[in-house]
C-alpha cells in the first residue's frame, strides 16, 4: 500500500481548492476519498501526480466545481421548484398559450346555447397574434443546437423560486 507524504496531501488539497471547491466540508471529504484511492492503487514506483490527475478526472463530467455547485443547490435552493428542460418549456409554454386556449374554450362554452360555437375570426386572430411571438421565441430557444451554446442547454436543471427567481444549472 502506497503511503502518501504530507507534501502530496497538501498538493491534492491545493488542487481541489484551485479547482473551485470552496466548502471546507467537501474539500476534506474529497481529500480523504482521493487519498484512499491513491493509497490503495498506486504502486511504489508509479508517478503520483500522473495517477492523481487520472483519478480526479473520474470525479466530474466537465470540471470539479460541479460538486461545489451541486452542494450549493442542495443547501441553498431547498424551497425552489426544480424542473428539467422539457418540464420548464412546457410550463412557460402553458403560461403564454394557456390563457388563450382557456379563453377560447370559455367562449365556446358561453355561446354553446346560441349555437355560435365556432370561434369568430377576430378572437382567433387575437389569440394567434398574442401567442405567436412568445411561442416562436420559445421554439428558437428550445431548438438551438448545443454548438451555439443555447440559453438553456440540454440536460440542464432549472430552479424557480425567490432569490433568484430563476436559475439555470448546466448538466451534472
Amino acid at each position, binding site marked *: 500500500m502506497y503511503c502518501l507524504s504530507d507534501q502530496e496531501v497538501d498538493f491534492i488539497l491545493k488542487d481541489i481548492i484551485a479547482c473551485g471547491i470552496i466548502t471546507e466540508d467537501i474539500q*476534506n471529504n474529497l481529500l480523504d476519498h482521493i487519498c484512499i484511492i491513491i493509497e490503495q492503487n498506486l504502486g511504489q514506483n508509479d508517478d503520483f501526480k500522473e495517477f492523481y490527475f487520472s483519478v480526479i478526472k473520474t470525479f466530474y463530467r466537465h470540471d470539479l466545481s460541479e460538486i461545489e455547485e451541486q452542494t450549493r443547490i442542495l443547501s441553498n435552493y431547498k424551497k425552489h421548484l426544480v424542473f428539467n428542460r422539457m418540464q420548464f418549456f412546457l410550463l412557460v409554454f402553458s403560461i403564454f398559450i394557456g390563457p388563450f386556449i382557456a379563453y377560447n374554450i370559455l367562449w365556446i362554452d358561453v355561446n354553446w346555447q346560441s349555437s355560435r360555437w365556432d370561434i369568430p375570426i377576430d378572437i382567433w386572430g387575437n389569440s394567434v397574434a398574442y401567442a405567436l411571438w412568445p411561442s416562436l421565441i420559445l421554439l428558437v430557444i428550445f431548438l438551438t443546437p448545443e454548438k451555439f451554446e443555447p440559453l438553456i442547454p440540454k440536460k440542464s436543471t432549472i430552479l424557480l423560486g425567490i432569490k433568484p427567481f430563476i436559475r439555470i444549472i448546466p448538466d451534472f
Partner: protein
Amino acid sequence: MTYSTELLKGTLKTIILKLLSDNKKMYGYEITQKVKELTSDKIQLTEGALYPTLHALEADKLVTTEIEYIGKRMRKYYRLSLEGKIKTKEKVKELSNFMESMVSLLDIKPKKS
C-alpha cells in the same frame, strides 16, 4: 449493467440513510464501496452526487458527524441522528410503496426462483 443517474437521483438520500441505519457510522468512501458491494457494481455512487447529499443531510440535521484525523487529513464519519432514524423509516417505506406501484404499473412479474 449500471443504472442511469436519472433513476438514482430520487433514491440517493434513501440509500445513504438506510446504509447509515444498518452500519451505525460510515465515511464517504466506505459508503461508495458498500453500495458497490451490495449491488454487485450495478449502482456506483459518484463523488459528485454523494458528498453534496451528505452535506445536505448534515445541514438538515438528519446525520451527525465525527472527525478522525489520519495524518494530515481528516476523515468525517456520518451517523444517523434521532430525526434521521425517523426519516429513514419514512423514506424506506415511501420507496417500498413506490416500487410496489411501479411493479403493478409496469406489469412486472416476479422472477421465479
